[in-house]
């Protein structure tokens, strides 16, 4: 009997893409998909240990009031789980340690980066080396972008995908690294997974609006060293059906939206591998 794949989508405190994220997991074939309010984790009613695939959806954790996902990261680092001697971060660390998959989209990506889980150099998942800051335009924008997928990346989620068209919807999506070394290492180790590009999906671009936020080297998403943790600013869960595409009334498009491949790769991997 094939293995049962269990996905969790965390919500609460300002997260708002949990529905479509869960829908994506279901469409991709996950057997169990639970939308879990973070309070249930903090009260010990649910545990990450019971899942294989952790989804951190978009939204505005705590309003992004202290910078995107900052207060959210602070909660994961310091909030205690009721009746246990651990905090939420410990559950995250255990989840990662077991080689399970994590996908952070938009605010979820910001959260992973601010926790230090991405890029997570040398297995240190608590050391922040990159960030996502205010778009060069100084404004929140909702617009569709083309993404080139790095063929050399080890990222599980983008296997067999060469390019992808998705919407960005953020005000703080400009990817920045602590220094040059971090940036070089990201490239060298192929932890850069997706980059803003033109329609041909060929080169990373810096020109606005193809690169909507001024991200360094056009970086839109990165993974950890194992390729099992992936974060990106654009929203794969926003393109699950052709009618989500802004030009579906004028183009011949497949029924399935391009974003679904990300989730299918994750579910397929979990079903096959021992995670």
């Amino acid at each position, binding site marked *: 009997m094939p293995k049962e794949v269990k996905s969790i989508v965390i919500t609460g405190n300002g997260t708002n893409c949990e529905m479509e994220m869960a829908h994506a997991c279901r469409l991709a074939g996950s057997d169990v998909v639970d939308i879990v*309010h973070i309070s249930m984790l903090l009260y010990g009613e649910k545990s990450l240990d019971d899942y294989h695939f952790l989804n951190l959806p978009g939204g505005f954790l705590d309003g992004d009031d202290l910078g995107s996902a900052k207060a959210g990261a*602070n*909660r994961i680092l310091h909030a205690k789980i009721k009746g246990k001697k651990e905090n939420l971060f410990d559950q995250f660390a255990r989840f990662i340690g077991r080689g399970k998959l994590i996908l952070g989209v938009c605010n979820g990506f910001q959260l992973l980066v601010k926790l230090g889980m991405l890029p997570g150099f040398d297995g240190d998942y608590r050391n922040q080396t990159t*960030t996502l800051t205010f778009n060069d335009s100084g404004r*929140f924008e909702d617009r569709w972008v083309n993404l080139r997928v790095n063929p050399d990346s080890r990222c599980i989620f983008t296997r067999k995908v060469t390019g992808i068209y998705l919407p960005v919807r953020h005000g703080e999506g400009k990817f920045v690294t602590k220094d040059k070394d971090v940036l070089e290492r990201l490239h060298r180790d192929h932890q850069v997974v997706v980059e803003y590009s033109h329609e041909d999906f060929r080169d990373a671009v810096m020109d606005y609006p193809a690169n909507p936020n001024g991200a360094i080297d056009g970086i839109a998403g990165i993974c950890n060293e194992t390729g099992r943790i992936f974060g990106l600013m654009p929203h794969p869960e926003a393109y699950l059906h052709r009618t989500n595409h802004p030009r579906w009334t004028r183009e011949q498009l497949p029924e399935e939206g391009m974003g679904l491949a990300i989730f299918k790769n994750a579910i397929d991997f979990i079903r096959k591998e021992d995670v």
Partner: protein
Amino acid sequence: MADRIEIGFKEGVRDSLGEKIKKRIIENLHIKVDSVKTIDVHTIDGNLTRKELDMAAAGPLSDPIIQGFAINSGLADRFDWMIEVGFRPGVTDNVGKTAREAIELLFGKLSDRLSGVHTSRQYVIEGRIGRDDAETIASSLLANDLIERYVIVDGKSWDRRKGLSPYVPRVIGEDRVHIEEINLDASDKALMEISSRRLLALNLEEMKALRNYLTDKSILKERKKAGLGGKMTDAELECLAQTWSEHCKHKIFNARIVYEDERGKREEIDSLFDSCIKRATKEIRERLGKDDWCLSVFVDNAGIIRFNDDYNLVFKVETHNSPSALDPYGGALTGIVGVNRDPFGTGRGAKLIFNTDVFCFAPPTYDKPLPKRILHPRRIYEGVREGVEHGGNKSGIPTVNGCIVFDERFLGKPLVYCGTGGIMPAVIQGKPTHTKEILAGDLVVMAGGRIGKDGIHGATFSSEELHEGSPVTAVQIGDPITQKKMTDFLLMARDRGLYRCITDNGAGGLSSSVGETARLSGGCEIDLKKAPLKYAGLNPWEILISESQERMTLAVSPDLVQEFLALAEKMDVEATVIGRYTDSGMFHVLYGDATVAYIEMDFLHDGVPQMQLQANWQPRIYPEPDFPEPADMGQSLKDMLGRLNICSKESVVRQYDHEVQGGSVVKPLVGVCNDGPSDAAVIRPILTSFEGVVVANGICPRYGDIDTYHMAACAIDEAIRNAIAVGGSLDFMAGIDNFCWCDPVQSEKTPDGEYKLAQLVRANKALYDCTRAFGVPCISGKDSMKNDYNIGNVKISIPPTLLFSTMGRIDDARKAVTLDAKRPGDLVYIVGETYDELGGSEWYAMHGVIGNRVPKVNVEKAKALYRALSKAISAGLVASCHDCSDGGAGIAIAETAFAGGLGMLIKLALFPSSGIRRNDTLLFSESQSRFVVTILPTAKKSFEAMMTGIAMGQVGEVLAEGFLKIDGLDGRRIIEEDISGLKAAWQKPLNF
């Protein structure tokens, strides 16, 4: 004591907010500055150690990759001027609240050592400007004096080591309760003085009704038992004023009106609301019989219709004009999160699935002197835009539809319409969700935010014109995250059946939410002392009527209350039992043991006397314009495309998340470059289904200058035809009416009140005629009647404005169409007849004239057209469809072409029309119920067969070459323009 943590970007990191401010200083204020940098300041009101401050600053408060910080010293180094802007005491500080929570999470609860965190922002300016300029920047751009304070620091005197000393905007309030009693046994004059001094906004008849109430012996006897005498308490008076306010009771809409038309024919109208709006809906529902899909109309916070067997849809549109005039950001933010609570608090509660926003502003290019207390239209524009952005985006509700209307008269008050739709399961735990029920004995529970002095007198304030004494406490700032947490919690509580009834706290606060819901059981008894407050120092009457945001009121059965409260605690939402519902017939309010209000429910809700008003209709005749047809029609078309009412609103639309929740089907921006203007939105609220919701709006205040009957008829037609254009259908479409009027009550202040009231009567007559004939019932609505500015000798009244919004169903969202031309060779049709109807048009406005021939709606013809077109769209015969509105067919044709990135050849001689001899009339007449449609040539036969009997003409074809070519009536080419040039003209004006 207090400490300051300053956080700024490291050297070399781009400060895009600073750059944006710099741009605004230069563009809006015309002051030349070289650079602006921003620094965020957290003032920690408490007693933290230096080490703790360091940890907080380096931890949650700053980003180590890009930011640095300073504690109790200045971070800014060299500059010419620095302006620090912070909140005044009592103003909602969302960031400060989050910072406090983050610090407490870091160190555990610090209640004894941390009173609060207050945020402010520094703008560090370089540039050779003087103190006057810095003052202008602070007061005209960075700070709103009503809610914010600022300090200006001269760079020459700056001592970085010392920095600025901490300022804590704490509300100093004593916990000393004061209950005042007001003697209403007084002269008429004295009564009116009480009304005006206390901002009650009650008229003499109403004040007299209060006076009479207290002369009833049996009432006095009852009051005595409750410990009250023959005077009215402040809480009672304030509560009655809120409940009886124009805002809550719609007194003008419920007035008895004698209407006299231009021929002297008199007619008596007993309530416009009953005789026009409700009546049309009632008649439509009767006609639908057992197929009636309306479930709850006019009785709840929002209207409810059936979506399918399993789900209901909910919709409401509100305005938040007066607060937005004073504080555009806070006013608009509160507007959007406020209207969110309407569908959320309807029936058993709905999940929110879309927002709409429609703004009416004075032109941002306004360059005349500003009347006192009026903010510059560009500041209003940017503030309102940002408020709705934060409110909508942070709540995770897609903003799917809207528009912006410009008219100089909106200088007096901007109109900020915010709408929200929701979806609810039709049945939860075996009970229908669209009704409300409360049993005596149920507990009154308040959940969400706390109560402060913010938003006191909001309901009465919005029932008045903007005047010198307009209260600053009416201004508030919404907190979308507190609300989101609350809605997450309440949806879970709803699905577990933990409460019986839900309603929101909006205008009038608890007095209104509890007062309204108590009608269901027949009374209530609440103790204001139990209500959680933001700070001490509120008197009972203030607690009762405060409009502090993010609060819902619930009726919870006593046996479920523990479970309800436990879930709230777990989900970090404050919920408090403040009393219980009764069947005593009394609205009974205590503060501890003392009764502060004891009013008969019947009197509270039905005691307000009906207004008696007079309306006189005298049509206004304007000079008929006399200008020659322009020689360069191509240039005229470009000029029209660049008109504020026509041009692209992309810069605003992009800043709203219009696709969160994953069900977006027709987005606001579509076409080959994702930048063409959609007519309406289509969304799929249930991701596993293709059933869609169509959302559209119509608004055209200019026609009201000629006749508000036609203004209203055209707004209704526009909303309907926008929905039809994307694939909606008349079979399943509900409406929401939002009237924004200038004061229509004849008085010294309003000498033309009888005319303005006649305008209102006429608009309502049109609403009755059109909604009934179209079969589009209003299911809810709202009116805002005092949109005037009156200070000194300056009076500005807005043009009477009706926003009509529609929500409908499309059976299969995959059949929706968009406006953009699809393929070269496709045939272009004009569907619907063009008349010489340029009165009140954008074309005439561009020539500075109004004219008289206002567009008129022929509902019967329009209905046949809409039915046929819906059928053709549903059959897949239509490639693109765009409605003709502002600027007429000429604009619609141009938009269809450039949105598709394709050219067109059009022959005006083939337009279905009669008696039009001028090309500009054909191009720019705003005749209603018309579309530009393109179809595949192979679909011609079927399309034309389906449209049999409909006035339409095949007027041209789509070209591969990117030129719009238009041949005039005599066959001569009058326009040949590159579509990229047309698009550029259309995109430029509001691209900031």
